[in-house]
């Protein structure tokens, strides 16, 4: 229990620091890049893929494996699609800049 609590506070610390980093950086991103940002952030949220990979892999149970497979498919669509869409949009901004 005690070490679980400690681990929680450590995780909370990471969360707080990451939130500050996120806030400071994202408020700096100009409006015209907000659409690619949304798509890119979306792709990052596909990080749940990590959880899916572990579960799809473990495969102790057929139902769990099936759900895991579905989760892998969905998360991968999110990740691959998100980064690609963002890439296509950003590519058109290139050469610009001031």
């Amino acid at each position, binding site marked *: 229990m005690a070490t679980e609590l400690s681990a929680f506070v450590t*995780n909370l610390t990471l*969360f707080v620091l*990451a*939130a500050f*980093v*996120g806030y400071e*950086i*994202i408020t700096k*991103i*100009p*409006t*015209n*890049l*907000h*659409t690619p*940002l*949304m798509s*890119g*952030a*979306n*792709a*990052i*949220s*596909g*990080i*749940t893929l*990590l*959880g*899916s990979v*572990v*579960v799809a*892999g*473990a495969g102790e*149970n057929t*139902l*769990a*494996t099936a*759900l*895991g497979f*579905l*989760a*892998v*498919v969905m*998360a*991968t*669509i*999110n*990740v*691959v*699609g998100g*980064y*690609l*869409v963002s*890439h296509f*949009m*950003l590519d058109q*901004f*290139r050469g*610009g*800049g001031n």
Partner: protein
Amino acid sequence: MAGVLAQYLPPAALQLAYLIAGILFIQGLRDMTHPRTATRGNQISAAGMFLAVVVTALWFDILSPLILGAGLLVGGGIGVWLAVTVETTEMPQLVGLFNGFGGGASALVAGAELIDVLAVGDSLTIGLTATAAIAGIIGSVTFWGSLVAAGKLHGLVGDSPVSTNVGHAIKVLFLGAAVVAGLVLVIQPDALGNAPMASWVPSYWVLVAAASILGIFLVVPIGGADMPVVIALLNSYSGLAAATTGFVLGNTALIIAGTLVGASGLILTVIMCESMNRSLTNVLFGGLGGDDGDSEEMEDIYEGNIQETSPEEVVMLLETADRVVVVPGYGMAVAQAQHAVAELVELLDEHGVDVEFGIHPVAGRMPGHMNALLAEADVPYDKMRELEEVNPTFSQTDVAIVCGANDVVNPRANEDDGSPISGMPVLNVAEANTVIVNKRSLSPGFSGIPNPLFARDNTSMLFGDAKESMQDLVNDYKEATD
């Protein structure tokens, strides 16, 4: 049995890999602060994701690499296909769709995890069930909410407002059901004892079902043009859900990445609400924009005051103009008129006209939507001016061409008359010598209110589809200047 890497390396190596992935995500976002470095930033972020996934796959005990590989392949294929085939105008709904898949994945993962733990014979700890409950609720709401939002943006789901009181009651009911199911899951994970279905953790799936219905009912009554706000907010939620999962698994990469996404979604939501001068509550629970009782008021304003013009007349104006500002809006996106507009602007530029775009922060349906579209049509970066930059120049502008925009040029926003847009900063095109408004009819824009700009003395309406009208202007201008 542990995976390949875990046999040779200490657990700290996995953590280190996750830290590096986290750094890549952060650096990727930092590069997003400038168009010049943004493409690289996106690639850096993708590299972080690749690293995290590969290391995870090689680290953990993969009894069925086939299934994992198949999942990655299928998902990757669908992702590439969607990204490659979609039109830039359909970006908003695609982003919504992707977001939904992310949410769905995290709800499924949490369920699979619960079933898996029981199957191995371990017991469900509070930490596990509590996070599963949170991930389940947020994930399901995100999945269905995003799907409805994407459907609305794509025109598949109509704006059929559910009567608010009944609607609110339904939302409260299903939220309550989801929470109760969650509490059962946490407090009595083995409520069913050894019943045959017990190993499926039914309370979790009840929670998922309730949250799914909640997600649908939350988004259906929200107006179609508010969908980007909804998607950004749901994206923020799915980031927070990922972070929550990270708390349980003790996974640094999930915590950092999830938090970054949560921050990004929340900030975008706030920015969008602010540029529309509305509160988040108003967006989420205010129901649809304007009511249709406005039609009478509209007739009053427009009656006898509308001047129509033709492409030929507009070209004559353009020939003598020294400065022209083009204001694009949602209609330009829908009509896919960005290439025609870009060509017109290039032509004018070649003929020595001082021509620029005036871009409102919420023109279109996503923040930065117009910029993305115009960039796709090769409009140079320095021709796109923001609201604050371009507004002071309208008084020295000869012709302002409004292309498929409506709310973002509505002068009523400057009057505090309680209209849905009052207080929202708008582009003051009326200060230009002549205003040309191109749209198909006098029907209102997203907010549903009439636009007095159309009835001004110095405004002429160029009715028609944006793409066709702009193409006409290009052709006529070419002929006239040949």
